[in-house]
């Protein structure tokens, strides 16, 4: 709710546990499932605990970094925040519109032109056609793709589609922006513009959750950070301090 006082953190994650069903080899076939059902065998899929009791809050105007080795639960955390996964236990509350920058450009349809994809992606973020028409020129200009906007996305370089993805996700004016390891694509100049935009975004009181292996960026951009290991938060504090702990070997996969 926008009326909530600014002291209530807009992102509230409490005791979240996320278990996945471990789907071995390939999925079951319907035929096998029926045979097992007829024999009275009950197939209980093995569970894999990706997150084991995570709690954190992110305040207005704050950028939280989430770091950790591969498989520590970073991406699962982001997907939960994005609302595409439902936690097994615990609760996640987010006030306002959430936009994700996971896998920039992954949602684009390669056969459609950049422009067609802008409208489609806008609708995926929940905007009407009319609203997107108002944003269209600005998005295309920010991505620097004016002369390529009618070209199918399959002919874009990865940098081009990432630029379009970033321009889109930040122009839809979310209240909470979730950024995955994505800004590595695009040249230095574009990255600088992205950070500039995210900084202004934060200054206007919006919230950012940032996941990255790029420790220098987390250190310089985020206020606070959380270090994950095997689905648990093992260190939480200022970005400076948590990154230093991770660099000293805490939370490495083999530690």
């Amino acid at each position: 709710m926008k009326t909530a006082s600014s002291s209530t953190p807009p992102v509230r994650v409490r005791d979240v546990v996320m278990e996945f069903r471990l789907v071995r080899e390939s999925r079951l076939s319907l035929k096998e499932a029926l045979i097992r059902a007829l024999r009275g065998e009950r197939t209980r899929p093995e569970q894999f605990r990706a997150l084991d009791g995570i709690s954190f809050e992110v305040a207005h105007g704050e950028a939280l970094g989430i770091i950790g080795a591969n498989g520590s639960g970073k991406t699962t955390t982001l997907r939960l925040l994005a609302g595409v996964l439902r936690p097994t236990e615990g609760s996640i509350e987010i006030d306002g519109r959430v936009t994700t920058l996971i896998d920039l450009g992954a949602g684009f349809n390669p056969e459609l032109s950049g422009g067609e994809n802008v409208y489609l992606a806008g609708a995926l973020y929940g905007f009407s056609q009319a609203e997107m028409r108002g944003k269209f020129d600005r998005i295309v200009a920010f991505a620097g793709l004016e002369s390529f906007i009618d070209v199918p996305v399959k002919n874009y370089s990865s940098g081009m589609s990432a630029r379009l993805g970033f321009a889109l996700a930040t122009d839809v004016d979310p209240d909470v922006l979730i950024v995955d390891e994505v800004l590595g694509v695009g040249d230095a100049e574009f990255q600088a513009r992205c950070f500039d935009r995210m900084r202004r975004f934060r200054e206007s009181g919006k919230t950012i959750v940032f996941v990255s292996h790029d420790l220098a960026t987390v250190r310089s951009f985020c206020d606070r950070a959380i270090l994950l290991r095997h689905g648990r938060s093992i260190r939480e504090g200022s970005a400076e301090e948590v990154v230093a702990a991770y660099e000293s070997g805490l939370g490495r996969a083999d530690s």
Partner: protein
Amino acid sequence: MRKSLSELWRYRDLARLLVAKELKLRYRRSVLGFAWTMLNPLLTMIILSAVFAHVLRVQVEHFPVFVLSALLPWNFFAQSVVGGSLTIVHNESLLRNVRVPRAIFPVALVTSHLVNLLLALVPLLLVMIVLGVPPKPGLIALPYCLLALWTFTTGVVLVLSTWTVFFRDVAQIVEVFLTALFYLTPVIYPLSMLPEQTRAVFRLNPVLYFVEPFRQMFYEGRIPAASDLAIAGGLAVASLAIGLAVFRRREHLFLHYLS
């Protein structure tokens, strides 16, 4: 059910764009473009007419209109089911990243096939005029029949698109099943050709109640019996309710199985 439907309605702009996308992609790849939707059933009709009228010597007056009027709704159903089963699997990367009502993908796919069906009705009307089978006022029931067909098919597709996520052989099973169903549904033969007892058994096939009215309206030129239309309406609502229930119960697990 009301909640799912109102959620889908809020995303109607997205639904419209997804339908447009389906149509664009389908036609961008072919030289003939939209004309193909109209040509395809005509060619099937010519083949069927040649086989039945000349090789098998089936005596049905105006066979092209007879067969096309039932073939078009059947094609809609079959193509929606085949394509629709895969919609969740195919839209995995979107589902992974964006929070949208997931049912929008199967619904949009079925709707894109409905647009195709509407386009394919044009050549049917042309064939009717050419063969001297004038369109009759019975066609006033057409909007109802189209809505019932769409609703019924959407329910079936919601169930199948859910199962396809969990079981890898659903697509193959569906294909075999559709072949059988095609012959169990009076498309290439009239229901009246069957003996009385067999006909009663064939009437247990729900698809019949969505195909037969089209033949009655276009070929026989009459309004389908109110009782049959009522059965179609009931089946359609039941199908959609079951489809949404199955889908909603399972959708939060989709990402656990897609990989």
